[in-house]
């Protein structure tokens, strides 16, 4: 039922309006006196050195990839969960097979050390 989303849309418009209002209010209410020291990124009192957009550990990338795999699993699980009471045993066995394949993948990533953080 697409029309049940109309209130959500109205809520969205109201929310965005309030967010814009708050930011605009703070932008126009406040006096600004920017100085070089004020605008410096915070680094515990020292002048910042090097770039702030450094390379970070590749581990985070692995996590992101694992996330995609298991999030897809969750996406497949949801519609199954809704109609589970009609599918009964057949549905259960199918899903157990599907999940077993994915868990095998998790186990593989685990043994490969993709989940280890030093």
């Amino acid at each position, binding site marked *: 039922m697409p029309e049940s989303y109309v209130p959500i849309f109205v809520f969205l418009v109201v929310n965005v309006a309030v967010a814009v209002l708050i*930011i605009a209010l703070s932008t126009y209410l406040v006096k600004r006196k920017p100085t070089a020291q004020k605008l410096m*990124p*915070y680094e515990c009192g020292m002048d910042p050195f090097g770039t702030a957009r450094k390379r970070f550990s590749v581990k985070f990338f692995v996590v992101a990839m694992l996330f995609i795999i298991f*999030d897809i699993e969750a996406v497949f699980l949801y519609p199954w969960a809704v109609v589970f009471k009609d599918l009964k045993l057949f549905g259960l066995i199918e899903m157990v097979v599907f999940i077993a394949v994915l868990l095998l993948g998790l186990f593989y990533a685990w043994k490969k050390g993709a989940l280890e953080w030093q």
Partner: protein
Amino acid sequence: MELLTYLALMGLKSIAVLGFLLFAASYLVLGERKLLARFQVRYGPNRAGPWGLLQPIADMIKLLAKEDIVPQGADRKLFLLAPALVATTALLSFGAVPWGPELVLGGRKIEGAVADVQVGLLYIFAMSSLSVYGIALGGWASNSKYSLLGAVRGAAQMISYEISLGLSLAPIVMLSGSFSLREIVEAQEKVPFGLIQPVSLFLFLTSALAEIKRIPFDLPEAENELVAGYHTEYSGMRFGLFFLGEYVNIIVLGGVVANMFLGGWKGPLLPPLLWFVIKVLAVAFFLIWVRATLPRLRYDQLMHLGWKLLLPLSVLNVILTGAVLAAWPKS
């Protein structure tokens, strides 16, 4: 004409809900500070008004009047967008949380929710996933090392726990056969799902704590190593929006737990709305209690907990629930 009145009514309702949310979030901040103080044998805020009741208003004025600074080298557009994204997605996710039964007022049906969405649960998940963008963008755009580290940690943590968050609720969907929070509440007429599915409740609460980045999972903003994490460089009302999003998330989480596990607005004697508020406050109190009690996890412990314990456990829970439901279809 009919459409216009409908839209106007919806607008009024949205404004009322939004006002309530902002009010509740700012007083939740005060409540948390008071409770934490009591847990630590202090008084907490007690200067602004009786029992510090005007503290949220004082805080708001202060935040609005602060000079807000965009640091040198920041990606200005993203820097300005990020806090609004966090606050809006948090507020929007309340849109699918029902707080009471339908009322009939003057021949019009008034739903006890902003919108009675058929796939309310999916909608809430979608909104909570979107808030990852706010954090990742805000931290990256700040041009500060602490912010970047906080943002990367935050994004990795949130996506890791999102999986067990989603899977932990699958048994509830299997039991009720619906994604609509209203129908899930209706399905708990006899027994609240919290009693049938305590494992699911535990999994959901743990993953949700990580998802909204509260102690013991507040590594993205761990103040003794990362200053303030992804919002280090934010000041004034922009910081206020991050803060607001955090506390609105607590209310949304309270609403979701109340509807999914505690039987929603249903209860004896008291009116439905009051029951809902009591249940939400009980969840909020639990979160504050956890914050006062537990220390912060280390990052490897956090990732191990999410991937090696919560994820397999939630999958197991889904399969076990399925097996029980397949064996005794009537229960």
